């Protein structure tokens, strides 16, 4: 069942189109993430759904009801704010009870709901504390409990974890995910952290310049990016613009850049003379023999040892290329300036049209 439907939404600030052509359908109980760099319009979209901005064009439906003209305070779209927005002059209890009191619920029901909300964010016993006695993580839990308590039609998260330190961020995102699933409230989550988005979401919309670039499950976004922006933004990827040679054989075609020659899938490259060949650092394999297909030689610039992985920065035909070596051993790691060899399997390559930036070949149809 559709919980939120957005049709042709556009919001301008003066001349600037903050968001445009937004079309979305979010299922009931879904955890939906808006992912993009700062200024991409993701927060604008969220705030328009909350009613803090009024769109210039388009419609927003919640549970089938058109809410364009419903003021923010009647939308029942509870938000968890980036800087917590916990009322500093109220206790934890009063904060969580705020929305319930506005709804004129009976006293005993309020205290029951507040207790339940605080319990689900592990803040039992904090009722009488004031926000200045709470850590950032605890304040955000209050913010979350406060939003949940009113049993909103949709929960909106505006980069709720960006002010927390890395370790707490990971802890909190798991908690948010668990609470959201147990309550089954439809959630829209805004973040610029692609790792966070991949971990937490049922589906992700990647945004750039006010436009949705791709909507998909985390796996699809990562493995089948629709264009170079999505490929660049989600995960690490290498891209080489290469010259295509005529003639395909066995579904493969030769692409060259200087002394480098790779066999790339020919599907979708018909009529192109150039192509962007992209591959992720983890997809390269060790070039065991000199005869290995698609062997690449690079000069080692830097090595970052990260435990389970060693990340090499190489120079290949004047371009920076990053590859990962799994389970590295000290003896495996070449010295800076030495040559390093690896191979790129043709079936792990992603191809893009250099003129449009759009994906071609396998995966392009989606």
């Amino acid at each position, binding site marked *: 069942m559709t919980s939120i439907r957005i049709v042709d939404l556009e919001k301008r600030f003066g001349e600037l189109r903050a968001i445009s052509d937004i079309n979305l359908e979010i299922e009931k109980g879904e955890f939906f993430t808006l992912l993009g760099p700062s200024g991409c319009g993701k927060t604008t979209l969220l705030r328009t759904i909350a009613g803090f901005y*009024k769109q210039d*064009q388009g419609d927003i439906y919640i549970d089938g009801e058109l809410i364009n003209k419903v003021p923010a305070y009647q939308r029942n*779209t509870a*938000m968890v704010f980036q800087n917590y*927005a916990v*009322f500093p002059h109220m206790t934890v209890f009063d904060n969580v009870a705020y929305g319930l009191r506005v709804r004129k619920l009976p006293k005993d029901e309020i205290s029951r709901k507040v207790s339940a909300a605080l319990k689900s964010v592990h803040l039992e016993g904090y009722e009488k504390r004031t926000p200045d006695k709470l850590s950032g993580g605890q304040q955000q839990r209050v913010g979350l409990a*406060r939003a949940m308590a009113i049993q909103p039609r949709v929960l909106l998260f505006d980069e709720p974890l960006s002010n927390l330190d890395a370790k707490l961020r990971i802890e909190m995102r798991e908690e948010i995910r668990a609470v959201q699933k147990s309550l089954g409230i439809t959630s829209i989550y805004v973040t610029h952290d692609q790792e966070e988005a991949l971990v937490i979401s049922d589906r992700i919309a990647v945004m750039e310049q006010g436009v949705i670039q791709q909507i998909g499950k985390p796996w699809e976004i990562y493995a089948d990016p629709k264009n170079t922006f999505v490929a660049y933004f989600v995960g690490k990827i290498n891209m080489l613009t290469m010259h295509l040679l005529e003639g395909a054989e066995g579904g493969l075609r030769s692409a060259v850049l200087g002394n480098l020659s790779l066999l790339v899938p020919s599907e979708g490259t018909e009529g192109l003379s150039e192509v962007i060949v992209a591959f992720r650092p983890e997809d390269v394999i060790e070039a065991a023999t000199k005869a290995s297909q698609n062997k690449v030689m690079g000069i080692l610039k830097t090595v970052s040892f990260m435990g389970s992985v060693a990340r090499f920065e190489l120079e290949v035909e004047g371009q920076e290329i990053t590859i990962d070596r799994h389970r590295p051993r000290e003896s495996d790691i070449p010295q800076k300036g030495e040559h390093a060899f690896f191979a790129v399997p043709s079936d792990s390559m992603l191809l893009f049209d250099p003129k449009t930036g759009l994906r071609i070949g396998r995966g392009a149809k989606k």
Partner: protein
Amino acid sequence: MSQKAETPSIRHSRADIWSFVIFFGFVIVIVFLIYPLFDIFRYSFMDKKTQTFSLSNWKTFFSKVYYLRAFWHSIVIAILTTFFSMVLGIPLAFFTTRYRIKGANLLNTLSVLALLSPTFIGAYSWITMLGRNGFLRLLFQSIGINLPPIYGPLGIVLADTLQYYPFISLMTAGALMTIDRSLEEASENLGARSIKTFFSVTLPLVLPSVTGGALIVFMMSLSNFGTPMIIGGNYLVLPTLAYNLYTSEISQTPGMASTVSIILMLCASVVIVLQQWVSSRRKYASMLVNRPVIKQIKGIKSVLAHISCYGIVFFSTLPLAVIVYFSFRKTSGPVFKPGFSLDSYRQIFFDVPKTVTNSFLYSITAVLLIAFVGTLLGFVIARKRNAAVRILDPLLMIPYMVPGTVLGIGFIVAFNKPPIILTGTAAIIILTYFIRRLPYSVRSAASILKQIDPALEEAGINLGSPPGRTFRTITLPLMQSGIISGAIMSWVTSMNELSASILLYVGKTMTMPIKIYISVADGYFGTASAMSTILLFVTGIAMFIVNKYFNRGSETFIAA
């Protein structure tokens, strides 16, 4: 399918309470500022006899030495006061923020008390010390030192400086305390010795604050009426000239008084504009990670630092102490007798109790108005920036540049004729207090609001609370302490107001500052001392409350 036309944005969809507030703001500005000021303007271009347009007043001003001299006097006094205030204020700020000075808090409190006390009290006290029959002057005479009487420019600069230097010391100290220690450490780390560091890093960083403070002192001294009136003797400055002209033109159109008023207002405006420019231009955003250290100093250095700090504060507190002392002296009519008594207080409460109640009644009424209207207008200015508000905002700041004397003259010429007649009423005095303090209250409400994260209000709305309820349950409680401490400061300044009310009072609406002025003029120093002591006491109590219960630092006092 464009919806822009039929659904304007949610915030402005209804003619809500805020539109009414904005409208009301314009009414206040037009009726109580633009109208009186325009009347002054009109009178300055009106021939006394023919009542027609003429430049005769302006020609007179620029051709007669009598007028031009007052102009130069004003400028000279303001420059000297500013200079000496810096001489006292900067070292005091530096010593108290960088070195461990015993009792630094006490020094701070005493200098603020001097700053907030009514301007004329200091002047009057210096007369009791160094006037013609001043006890200090007589004391010096008895040991063969002949001091000239204090009347005139020397007295004005002395009284003004000792009252206003805290503007500079407090603002400089504020800036010094927010310089990150690592900036000075970086300078020393790069090889600069302390003196070099002071002049190349510390001083440039606090310079905007010093300049800002200096311009405030200049402005205060320029528009001060009480001090030159009491201690100036024949040395006229623009405010006293305007007052004298007004009282001598009482039966005719106040052409010359109006002309002088406009010139005074122009001078004040230039200074205000400069001050705004300085404060907007050079604010160094500083990430205060490492607070500056307060150094422990020893030996001769420590002794000298203590002597200069205590010396400065001693001389600014001395006039207040002298007043309090004299209020408890035995009197017989205008003459002080040996011994102590409560005669002077008794006299106040038997002879002029109305004056005391008037002062309290008027100032409290005004403050309630100020707090209420100021908060609403402050909210509009901070949160509802539409075209109308952008026009209203600077208009509300006009009272900053209107010296009390000018506002007094404006009110009297505007409100002694239809359509609005207010002369002789208590309302006109209350309205004067209201208008003079309104910009401070609006500013402070707006700046409190700017520190309140808009997300808090959004959270309220988001949780289902309508805008009105959100304002009441979220915004207002968060503003509360700021509003109350601001109101207390407004109350003190209203209690101590003289320059406008002296033009507007009639017998039954006399207030304490006016009574003090008249008593001093008539030589009844006992009554004047007792009343001044009451005002000082009130000022002190207010400061104490603001400090203790609202935990506000000295910034509150200088913003006031």
